[in-house]
């Protein structure tokens, strides 16, 4: 009968590396998506926060009587209502404070019928403060006579990290050149389009449901519970669509327990949502740092040692910010082959805003230093700068002093590709020679690279993910996964992988990943890990489902399972593509047979990485990757304006999965890195933020995005899904020092404290002119 039904064969086609659109893109494009900020629940009250507006003070008294009397007000809470409910890594934070330690400290909160009433009520709360002398730099905070910010952290000392390997003194004695600089990366913030928002509601069993923007729903429960006196198990986390996170939602911040405390007090759902000004003041920042770095090399261009002495401005409380040394030290010890390393980092409490995690976590700050020092050394040794980089590049199979195992390492290819495509070596020489010539506009080219974890980072006990996958009677696939979608595009990756493995159309894959009561564990969206970890989890689950389906097909069709494949919605002969049965039909037959079966599989994937450990000597990621950026710029030497003419980038992506998502992540990452490099800056004056608005906080806009020449190097990672590595932080990490190096190439001026704003560049060039006597 086969001869009669000559169904067309279905060819093998792969989706890996294709351009696949995000499933939520159409709704977002037309404005249909309902973000958390848009959500309204029946009976919902609006919560508002009274911020201290001063950096350091004792609270003498709070009078809430007038606010409580205002019609429409349902609750007014103060520090007393959060007494004993401390939270944070070191339990130094509380939803509502008993003392003021920074400008945005939450002093009181109101729940009312409307935003207007809540705002009015906030205005009626009378607080008497006694201002205290403040601490606004970590250097000042470390002084013996410095005012104490927390009673139980003497000397304002927060976290401390160290790592060393080899003998620095001996290595230094062997060095012909040593560069020694102090770098001061600054305060910037995430600027998510959707401002911070949470909605909390309790049921009568005392169980909390919280709708929030969190990017780590499972540990979030553990971190939120102590702020409320709840058990983590009594918290259900729902993640509606969010307008960005970028690391800013990797911890619990006070507005979340405030929403919950107000909900508990009123017995009604309460929504707290920040205005843009509140967002600027109260959301976490990127961790600023003072990095004293020294790097040495021999005359023949071999790196001998690198030391970094780091002081971190902890701000008033401890979130992810002061933990960045965990990644900083990997860069200090692993950015190029560095045989001898000494790293120390001390965080000091101040009365400034405090830092969370932010895309590029720790590595943005460190690469700002290491990549500039590589450029400085390249000018000292007697060799071509590119040759200097190549000479110190690691190769596949190398192990860094911290035991990062660089199984597939293509730094050399990245360097050669980016330098070759941009004609780096020739232009660098030409522009340097043209520096002294007259002319207002100077061209410059700069190269920078870095290394970053690309297979998660095992800083928790687990870096794994749970996946549940079911295929229904109509061959529609539901993936219930711990992987959160915060705009980064894991939804498209999961869809693509399921379609690849099960041969179903992309539109037939549904993802359920926004309810902690339903989806299984995942550590969260961070460390460039989700495509790597969730990609592996999804593929493993899909393959289990496929094995079950093909085993059933073998029974029904009498052809060996290992000769069959799923393609185009059918079971086909793998060799020739002849379709044998439609997949949905097969699934129904499996379901309705004498021994019925449904396709429902589970998977738990834990990457083969080692826990970070207290000594920081472990292979803490399942993969590592490199990127090289070459920036070409024009500097207006009078106004100091830098125009970025072009960026050439080569990055080890392992394998391209969704090409469109990859490009978008690289472009978005670069935009954040460019703003960091050129214009973004939180202007703090004695702890008070002077530019809490987009008028004065300069995000780059679309016209400033330069032309990009992107090269994806595929190293085929043995551990990664289809060979892929994590990709999304490197673009943010590498671009700023590439521009700094280009600025030097163009003008002979170096900026150590970003951003390289027009004023700063103009001042540096002016100082250089004065020094030259003209």
């Amino acid at each position, binding site marked *: 009968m086969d001869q009669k039904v000559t169904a067309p064969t279905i060819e093998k086609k792969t989706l890996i590396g294709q351009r696949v659109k995000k499933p939520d893109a159409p709704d977002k494009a037309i404005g249909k998506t309902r973000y958390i900020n848009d959500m309204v629940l029946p009976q919902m009250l609006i919560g508002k926060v009274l911020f201290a507006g001063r950096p350091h003070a004792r609270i003498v008294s709070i009078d809430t009587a007038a606010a409580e009397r205002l019609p429409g007000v349902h609750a007014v809470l103060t520090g007393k209502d959060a007494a004993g409910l401390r939270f944070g890594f070191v339990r130094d934070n509380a939803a509502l404070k008993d003392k003021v330690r920074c400008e945005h400290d939450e002093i009181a909160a109101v729940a009312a019928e409307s935003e207007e009433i809540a705002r009015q009520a906030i205005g009626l709360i009378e607080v008497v403060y006694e201002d205290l002398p403040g601490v606004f730099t970590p250097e000042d905070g470390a002084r013996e006579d410095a005012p104490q910010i927390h009673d139980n952290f003497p000397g304002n000392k927060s976290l401390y990290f160290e790592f060393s390997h080899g003998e620095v003194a001996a290595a230094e004695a062997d060095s012909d050149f040593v560069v020694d600089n102090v770098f001061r990366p600054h305060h910037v913030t995430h600027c998510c389009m959707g401002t911070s928002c949470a909605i909390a509601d309790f049921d009568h069993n005392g169980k909390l449901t919280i709708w929030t923007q969190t990017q780590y729903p499972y540990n979030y429960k553990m971190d939120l519970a102590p702020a409320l006196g709840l058990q983590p198990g009594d918290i259900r986390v729902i993640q509606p669509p969010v307008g960005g996170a970028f690391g800013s939602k990797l911890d619990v911040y006070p507005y979340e327990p405030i929403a919950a405390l107000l909900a508990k007090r009123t017995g009604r759902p309460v929504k707290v949502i920040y205005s843009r000004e509140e967002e600027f003041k109260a959301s976490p920042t990127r961790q600023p740092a003072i990095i004293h770095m020294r790097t040495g090399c021999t005359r023949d261009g071999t790196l001998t040692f690198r030391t970094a002495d780091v002081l971190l401005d902890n701000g008033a409380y401890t979130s992810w910010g002061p933990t960045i040394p965990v990644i900083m030290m990997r860069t200090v010890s692993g950015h190029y082959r560095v045989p001898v390393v000494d790293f120390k980092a001390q965080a000091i409490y101040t009365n400034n805003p405090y830092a969370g995690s932010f895309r590029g976590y720790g590595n943005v700050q460190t690469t700002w230093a290491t990549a500039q020092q590589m450029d400085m050394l390249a000018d000292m040794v007697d060799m071509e700068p590119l040759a200097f980089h190549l000479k110190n590049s690691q190769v596949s199979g190398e192990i860094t002093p911290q035991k990062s195992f660089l199984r597939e390492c293509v730094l050399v290819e990245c360097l050669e590709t980016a330098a070759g495509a941009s004609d780096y070596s020739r232009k660098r020489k030409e522009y340097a020679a043209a520096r002294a010539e007259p002319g207002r506009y100077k061209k410059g080219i700069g190269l920078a690279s870095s290394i970053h974890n690309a297979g998660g980072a095992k800083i928790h006990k687990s870096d794994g993910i749970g996946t549940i996958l079911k295929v229904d009677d109509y061959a529609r696939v539901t993936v219930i996964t711990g992987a959160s979608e915060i705009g980064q595009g894991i939804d498209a990756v999961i869809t693509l992988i399921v379609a690849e493995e099960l041969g179903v159309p992309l539109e037939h894959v549904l993802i359920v990943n926004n309810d902690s009561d339903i989806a299984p564990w995942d550590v969260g969206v961070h460390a460039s890990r989700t495509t790597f970890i969730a990609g592996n989890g999804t593929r493993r689950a899909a393959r289990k489902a496929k094995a079950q389906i093909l085993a059933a097909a073998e029974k029904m069709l009498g052809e060996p399972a290992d000769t069959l494949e799923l393609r185009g919605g059918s079971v086909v002969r793998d060799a020739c593509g002849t379709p044998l049965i439609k997949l949905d039909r097969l699934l129904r037959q499996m379901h309705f047979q004498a021994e019925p079966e449904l396709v429902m599989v589970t998977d738990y994937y834990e990457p083969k990485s080692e826990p970070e450990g207290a000594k920081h000597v472990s292979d803490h990621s399942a993969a590592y990757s490199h990127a090289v950026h070459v920036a070409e710029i024009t500097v207006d030497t*009078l106004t100091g*304006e830098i125009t970025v003419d072009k960026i050439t980038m080569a990055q080890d992506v392992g394998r391209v999965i969704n090409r469109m998502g990859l490009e978008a992540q690289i472009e978005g990452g670069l935009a954040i890195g460019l703003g960091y490099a*050129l214009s973004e800056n939180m202007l703090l004056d004695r702890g008070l933020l002077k530019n809490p608005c987009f008028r004065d906080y300069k995000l780059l*806009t679309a016209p400033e995005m330069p032309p990009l020449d992107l090269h994806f190097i595929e190293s085929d990672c043995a551990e990664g899904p289809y060979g892929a590595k994590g990709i999304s932080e490197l673009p943010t990490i590498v671009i700023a020092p590439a521009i700094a190096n280009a600025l030097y190439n163009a003008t002979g001026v170096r900026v150590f404290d970003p951003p390289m704003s027009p004023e700063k560049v*103009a001042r540096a060039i002016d100082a250089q002119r004065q020094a030259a006597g003209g």
Partner: protein
Amino acid sequence: MQEIKSYLAPRSLDEAVKAMAAGDVTVFCGGTDLTPQTDSGAKRYGATLMNIRRIEGLSGIAEAGDSIRIGAATTVTEVRRDPLIARAAPILAEAAEHFASDQIRNAASLGGNICNASPAGDMINPLLVLDAAVELASWADGALRTRSVPLENFFTGPRRHVKRPDELLTAIVFRKPATDFVGWFRKSGPRPALEISTVSVGIGGNLSDGVFRNVRVAMGSVAPTPLRAHGVEAALEGRPLDADSIRAAVAAADADATPIDDVRASAWYRKHLVKVFTEEVLNHVLGN
């Protein structure tokens, strides 16, 4: 936020100024200054909010004899695209070109830019160079009253001006520049697009036989009000426009500008830019 009790959108000028005479009215044109200022609490709405964009004759650009008249509600986009402006007063089109973004330009009015009285107002600068005057209308003793105030005398301090609360700014008028008029405008900020001026410099005058006459120089963001830089004008007036006079003009710019440090820039940088731009604009005018 104070509650707005009523909203008016008059069709005629009489209706508008009568309402203003009657009391606490906030004029709303494009709203691009008003909205952020009331949101932040820097400004409060009056009891009546009055949208002036439907008032007949309040927008548009027209020749009137040897003058050009621009209605107060005319948007920056309209100025940017207008053929008469492009021909007769390109310095104004240049300022419109570097004004904010498309979205803001489509809403922002010239009248709003002037009444907001910011020293950084970008349309004010070229209008000072063009020696424009503003028309103010009010209602008194049962009749429409108008007066004309030279723009140079309009500003009295940061965000302060001579317009009374009951007066509506109806138009901006300037003489069509002669054919030997040359002028240019330059502004700067830390990013190219969507920028509030760190500093702006506009220079114009009649250049014939190599001699610069009727020179007018305006500077933005270097003083409490938009500034006419009389020192620079004196350095250039009646002299050949050459390397010597440009040097003198730059030195005078340094003296005329009295900027302050704020979040956008330091006084040092503003002075530095004023000098750079003065030289740049004069070189541009010279065709260098």
